[in-house]
């Protein structure tokens, strides 16, 4: 496997009238091709900030980020689907903005939608879809631009527990099948352990790495199955202890 992303000594200060906030102090990590890394940490510690910087939404204060010619896609916490566009049009949005929309890419997006159970909804509007389906559309919208690395910021937190489980199963399968790498930010330890090859635990703000776990399960499988693995509860408890609870 080869390294596709490297972050070194990342630092981020936010400036507001009231004060200067150091959100990320010294964060370094590497991502291998096809690897799923989960980042957990106490609320407000700077997790979203890290992803925002990686995706170019925010400027870093210092440090280096290198990912060569790889492309990064970002999946937000809410699906942010446009109600006035059809499902297909929503999924083509990124391509349209980047002016990369060709018949070939359109066919690719349609094939993704069909493959992942949304074939009957190409011309429907988002308000006809359930929360889980909407999240799947949001994922395909991100995949449409063919990113190599997917960033996801608590992508399921707006859903109920049942849908969360199914959609995390779906996302996992889709990303594995499409051979993507994933950085997943979550506050749900079970989600982190069941989806990640590696879990990074952050300290309280400003974010630094407190500990890293290589997740080695007896029978690695899909997220729902992984939750039943013998080693699962061990990691769950270890990480639970590691996170700073207020």
């Amino acid at each position, binding site marked *: 496997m080869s390294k596709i992303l490297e972050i070194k000594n990342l630092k981020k200060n936010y400036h507001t009238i009231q004060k200067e906030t150091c959100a990320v102090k010294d964060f370094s990590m590497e991502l291998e091709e096809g690897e799923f890394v989960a980042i957990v940490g106490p609320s407000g510690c700077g997790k979203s900030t890290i992803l925002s910087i990686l995706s170019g*939404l925010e400027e870093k204060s210092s440090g280096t980020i290198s990912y060569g010619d790889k492309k990064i896609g970002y999946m*937000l*916490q*809410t699906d*942010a689907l*446009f109600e*006035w566009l059809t499902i297909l049009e929503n999924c083509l949005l990124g391509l*349209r903005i980047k002016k990369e929309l060709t018949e070939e890419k359109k066919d690719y997006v349609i094939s993704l939608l069909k493959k992942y159970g949304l074939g009957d909804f190409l011309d429907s509007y988002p308000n006809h879809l359930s929360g889980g389906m909407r999240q799947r559309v949001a994922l395909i919208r991100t995949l449409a631009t063919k990113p190599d690395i997917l960033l996801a910021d608590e992508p399921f937190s707006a859903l109920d527990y049942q849908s969360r489980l199914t959609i995390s199963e779906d996302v996992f399968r889709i990303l594995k099948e499409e051979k993507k790498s994933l950085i997943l930010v979550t506050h749900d330890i079970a989600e982190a352990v069941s989806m990640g090859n590696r879990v990074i635990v952050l300290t309280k703000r400003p974010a630094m790495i407190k500990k890293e776990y290589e997740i080695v399960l007896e029978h690695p499988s899909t997220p729902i199955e992984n939750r039943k693995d013998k080693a699962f509860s061990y990691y769950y408890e270890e990480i639970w202890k590691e996170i700073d609870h207020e």
Partner: protein
Amino acid sequence: MSKEQQKFLKETKRKKYLILFLQFFLLFFFLCLWQISSSLGWINSFIFSSPGKVIQTMITLFKEGSLLHHIGITLFETLLSFFLSSLLGILIATILWWWDICAKVLDPYFTVLNSLPKVALGPMILIWFGANMKSIIFMAMLISLIISILNIYQGFKKVDSEKIKLMKTFYAKKWQIWRYLILPSNASTIIATSKLNISMCFIGVIMGEFLVSKEGIGYLIMYGSQVFNLNLVISGIVLLSFLATALYASILLLEKLSIRRRD
């Protein structure tokens, strides 16, 4: 369909027709009362006119060919100022959204202009632009534009920040955010503003016609009152209510069409 459901539907329908009937009845009753009391001399028909005389006046105007002319003029002025102020409203709201600093700088001026009774500027407008259609259009736009701008700008500002973030994750340029997100997500705001806008323009146009006093329904009313021809005045008012209703109904139609397209 069950019996109860049938009964319910029947009942609902009956109520609807009853309301419609009463609405017409009220109008009819009022017209009859008006006609009778002026025929029997209960009220002074010189001052209060009567439905018959109003109809007569309109027929005469129609035969002279001036009825349609005046309606046409008023309609044209209203639609022109409506289109101009809608267009300018969107344009200026866009500028404010684009350069946040503009919005902040202009904010107090908008507040003052918005609360200023625009009629007060009438005489000045007349001097600047002369007694012609320009003054009328300017008056109408003055009345409708500020509120249009403010409403549309509010809508632009309220766009979901997550959606803007999404656009940025695709490295969208500012004009793309405007084109693909800000504008389409505000379709309903713009239509709602149009509803307000068309009434405002209509008011402005009539005010302008009072001032300029050359042609249009506003002029008819003004002229009628000057020569003490109350038949003419009331005919003008009746025309105005028809026109106002028609304008409002066409915007409602527009709204319906735009909603159907989306769902």
